[in-house]
């Protein structure tokens, strides 16, 4: 089994300059590894630092210390200290991230939102659109909505567009922040199926899921992050 993510003694503290510089420790001593084909679920109460850990792995948050090694094209790269252009490369071809909310660009059609990561990786427009269409189908977004921008969709529909986009590239690492939070039972089942299929292809997954049923279905391992929570 190859290690895809190796977090070593990572920590995160926010310094709130606008609140007279108070220090807000979030997590410290974060240590865990994720193998290819494994789904690790982070658990713990709200505010324990689950999303912060996910964001540090994606380099959306900076690390205050420690390492976050990512296997990118065969070699381990510490994303906590990587150059911006290296991080962009890692995001393009190694790490996908499904956030809690879709950040939609005005005017861009749903099908293009979903196809965009493929286009960025050099897939032809025709094939990208074809795959995007299949992904949207699977997530029960009717074809008549594909040419509309998702900004007008309901929360659950937007989240499904977000999931379609996140799963489309078959990247080796996938980070999921509450992917099923605003979905009904039928669509939750679709997402569970997507996760299972992605795992079989060898993708390493780190997820945050509050739904016990979903967690039980997808988790190979549960990491309780309260052990990393920094005392305020």
């Amino acid at each position, binding site marked *: 089994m190859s290690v895809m993510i190796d977090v070593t003694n990572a920590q995160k503290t*926010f*310094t*709130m*300059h*606008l609140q007279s510089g108070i220090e807000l420790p979030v997590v410290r001593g974060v240590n865990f590894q994720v193998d290819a084909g494994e789904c690790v679920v982070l658990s713990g109460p709200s505010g324990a630092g689950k999303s912060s850990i996910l*964001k540090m792995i994606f*380099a*959306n*948050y*900076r690390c205050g210390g420690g390492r976050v090694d990512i296997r990118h094209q065969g070699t381990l790269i510490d994303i906590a200290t990587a150059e*911006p*252009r290296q*991080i*962009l490369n890692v995001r393009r071809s190694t790490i996908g991230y499904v956030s809690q909310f879709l950040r939609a*660009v*005005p*005017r*861009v059609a749903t099908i293009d939102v979903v196809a965009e990561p493929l286009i*960025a990786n*050099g897939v032809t427009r025709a094939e990208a659109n074809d795959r995007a269409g299949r992904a949207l189908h699977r997530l029960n977004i009717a074809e008549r909505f594909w040419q509309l921008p998702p900004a007008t969709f309901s929360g659950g529909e937007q989240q499904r567009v977000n999931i379609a986009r996140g799963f489309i590239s078959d990247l080796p690492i996938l980070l999921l922040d509450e992917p099923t939070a605003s979905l009904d039972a039928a669509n939750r089942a679709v997402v569970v199926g997507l996760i299972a299929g992605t795992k079989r292809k060898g993708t390493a997954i780190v997820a945050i899921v509050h739904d016990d049923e979903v967690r039980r279905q997808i988790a190979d391992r549960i990491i309780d992050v309260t052990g990393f929570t920094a005392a305020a």
Partner: protein
Amino acid sequence: MANQNLRENDEPLLIADDLSKSFGKIIACQDVSFKLYPGEILAIVGESGSGKSTLLQILSGQQSSGQGRVSYRMRDGVTRDLSTLGEAERRFLFRTDWGYVHQDPAQGLRMAVSAGANVGERLMAVGWNHYGRIRAAASSWLERVEIDVARIDDTPRTYSGGMRQRLQIARNLVTQPRLVFMDEPTGGLDVSVQARLLDVLRNLVRELHLAVVIVTHDLAVARLLSDRLLVMKGGQVIETGLTDQVLDDPAEHYTQLLVSSILSP
């Protein structure tokens, strides 16, 4: 194709080395250094008077820096110090390999000649002389920036603000530059028009693999378009990094203030 360009992309296109400039006692910029790679979009943000526009003018060789150096990798692969270029070389660079999009389209367009001529002129400057082909290229560029081709013979005076700005972009991109400077390109436009312009820009910079240095005070524009951010205050770069990292996890006092001051509907 991606692999073919790999080595090409590994060399910086534009290098700023320790740029400083002051007007009397006023410091416009101080010790600014960065490297810009092909296809990379760098946004320079900060409040008015923070030195953003001066920096853009220095980078594009329109103002000399008091200190420091700007280097550019020419099409022949040789990286040269801009201050050593002759006037003719510099002008050629500006006409071919570079674009410059002004906040006020009237500054970047010739308002008294037709839209088609505005676009065609840049082609003629690089040696195109076949009228039919120039007109065809101009039409196709009008289409790409979503301007009705039926308006090709009208002057930009008759265009709306948003159309003028899109025309200015077409005029800049027609020669397939590798680097485009943009100074507040969405500045004077109302919000609905901005969205269209941003969408057009976003698609074009990706399709054409353009490197862009964009000055903006609008963080939403920076988030939408740029890969990397430079935050300026009082002429100094106080924070840099990936755009989403700087906006979602700002480290400096001033950056936190900027981010927390955004009004969201």
